[in-house]
């Protein structure tokens, strides 16, 4: 049966169901239980955003609060993964990748390849990204391109509760290292989610809205802005096809190309900074593979080449807005 739950609840449910099914699944991260060693209540936080709340009661020491040592505990998760466990480790903010990135991109990502196909590293690293809550420069970035760039890593970015649960279950069952990216401003979005466990394959983009006039490709929070833009444009008779990539590595370019071959116009929306972004990656690939189909230059709607500002007034200008998406669509149509 499906019922409406939030993205936060969907992720929790995925973790719960997988822990139930597979005893090798363990969770670790800072404050994921909260209160370890303190005199107050157990399970005081259940994670910085409360994603884990209630799981400690069910699974006890399969949830580990960690000291403030990303390199050590992310590395430990990775090491444990090569030894038969299926850890889900939390990198609280994607911005913190700097303090532990070696373990992720030089170790986990490369074991399979460097060791000649003999290592399995089924680790999932959950992390929060994105701006919009005035968390300022060091807690608001969208560093998804950095992970996407690394061969050996898989990068997953759900935008809805249905996708969050299915992709988390898929990520845990996947035998390669997966970076599971959650936009910090989407935890309370609701949607229909089946009670049962289910999976969603990687490299399958979701078409949220069909249309023949222009293709909009995006992921994460920007999916919802793109859908809003499409609704507004529809009032003027412009039909946009909105594609949610869902996974950045592997990526479903087939769906994107197919759509562009039909519409001839492409707008890519990406909250990451523009240089070497997901937007530039997709644009280059489409220009290469669907050149003849294009009837207008590709438009990219991204944040600017700046750190994320603190002031809410500035942050609003920073994040790609629905209006900017609409303007880009109209620009492609003016050719």
């Amino acid at each position, binding site marked *: 049966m499906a019922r409406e739950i939030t993205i936060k609840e969907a992720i929790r449910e995925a973790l719960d169901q997988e822990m139930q099914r597979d005893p*090798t699944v*363990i969770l670790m991260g800072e404050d994921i239980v909260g209160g370890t060693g303190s005199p107050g209540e157990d399970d005081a936080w259940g994670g910085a955003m409360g994603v884990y709340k209630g799981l400690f009661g069910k699974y006890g020491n*399969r949830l*580990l609060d*960690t*000291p403030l*040592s990303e*390199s*050590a*505990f*992310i*590395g*430990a*998760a*990775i*090491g*444990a*993964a*090569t*030894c*038969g*466990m299926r*850890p889900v480790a939390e990198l609280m903010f994607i911005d913190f990748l700097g*303090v532990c990135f*070696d*373990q992720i991109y*030089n*170790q986990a990502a*490369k*074991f*399979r*390849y*460097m*060791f*000649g*196909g*003999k*290592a*399995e590293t089924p680790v999932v690293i959950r992390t929060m990204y994105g701006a919009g809550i005035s968390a300022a420069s060091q807690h608001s970035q969208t560093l998804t391109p950095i992970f996407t760039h690394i*061969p*050996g890593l*898989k990068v997953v970015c759900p935008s809805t509760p249905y996708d969050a649960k299915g992709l988390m279950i898929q990520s845990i069952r*996947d*035998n*390669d290292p997966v970076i599971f990216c959650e936009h910090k401003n989407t935890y309370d979005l609701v949607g229909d989610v089946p009670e049962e466990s289910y999976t969603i394959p990687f*490299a399958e983009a979701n078409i949220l809205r069909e249309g023949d006039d222009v293709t909009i490709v995006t992921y994460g929070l920007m999916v919802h802005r793109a859908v809003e833009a499409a609704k507004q444009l529809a009032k003027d008779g412009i039909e946009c096809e909105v594609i949610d990539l869902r996974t950045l590595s*592997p990526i479903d370019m087939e769906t994107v190309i197919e759509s562009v071959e039909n519409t001839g116009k492409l707008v890519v929306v990406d909250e990451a900074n523009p240089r070497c972004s997901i937007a530039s990656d997709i644009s280059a690939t489409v220009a290469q593979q669907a050149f003849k189909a294009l009837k207008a230059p590709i438009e990219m709607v991204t944040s600017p080449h700046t750190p994320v500002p603190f002031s809410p007034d500035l942050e609003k200008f920073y994040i790609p807005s629905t209006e900017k998406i609409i303007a880009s669509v109209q620009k492609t149509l003016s050719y």
Partner: protein
Amino acid sequence: MSNNPFPLNRDELLRAYRIMKTIREFEERVHVEFATGDLPGFVHLYAGEEASGAGIMMNLRQDDHISSTHRGHGHCIAKGVEVKGMVAELYGRSTGTCHGKGGSMHIADLDMGMMGANGILGAGAPLACGAALASKYKNDGTVGISFLGDGASNAGNFLESLNLAAVWDLPAIFVVENNGYAQSTSRDYAVAVDSYVDRAVGFGMPGVTVDGTDFFAVHEAAGEMISRAREGGGPSLLECNMIRFYGHFEGDAQTYRGQGEVDEIRKNRDCLKKFIQQVTQTKALKQSDLDGIDQEISVLINQAFDEAQKAPRPTEADLLTDVYISY
């Protein structure tokens, strides 16, 4: 008449010798071959440090895990990684341990509990913690051992791992193979404390210093720590003071070392000579036993290099394989 005062039986003594001698012969041969220019990339030789690797690994089972450093040949051999595969790997051939994809710095064999030599110093410490963590969940009594050098012992990875292992009470042993130099930088300069035991205690675990050129001293100290860890006694740190015969990497002129320093240590601080002396003088083993092993090792090394030099090279198609299990 043999008189064995050591806590290892005859077979174990022979095995210890075999391990150390194999490492020595392997490294010496690599040294020679590397000079011809036929070995691609970089190699970092373990010659002179054999007693540490052998002394520790003789306490381990196949399913115990170790993480190593860039100077990993000795750890690999001591942990039971197949020599022929290792040589082929150095040559980048498809018959190599890692099918030519890893090279000297990344030789690994997870089936033998060898989590890999590592090009990033200190990166193995968290990984060994991970192995130890898995051991706790699997309840299989295994341990995770992290080998590091004196240089890597300053890396954040290592220090974080010490704390993590203590906080989580992991069956983890951190072995600081202090050979006095981190590349060209002396340990005395780069490490503020006199002994790594101070760091161990500072992070909440016991630590012991041993002469890393004394196989028996290493074996005993490590044995105690490993048994304690297996029984749930938590992590420890072992400081093995030793020397390396060769430079940081092959090609390193070692101008940072004192005049005659290398000759002196080869003459007076060779752990293999020490071991031979110890076992033959007590008559625990006979020289002829050792000669027999020498002969076998010589054949093995020659075969390994011959075969490796003729082994097939990987093809362009191999370039793209094994990035993922499935994509």
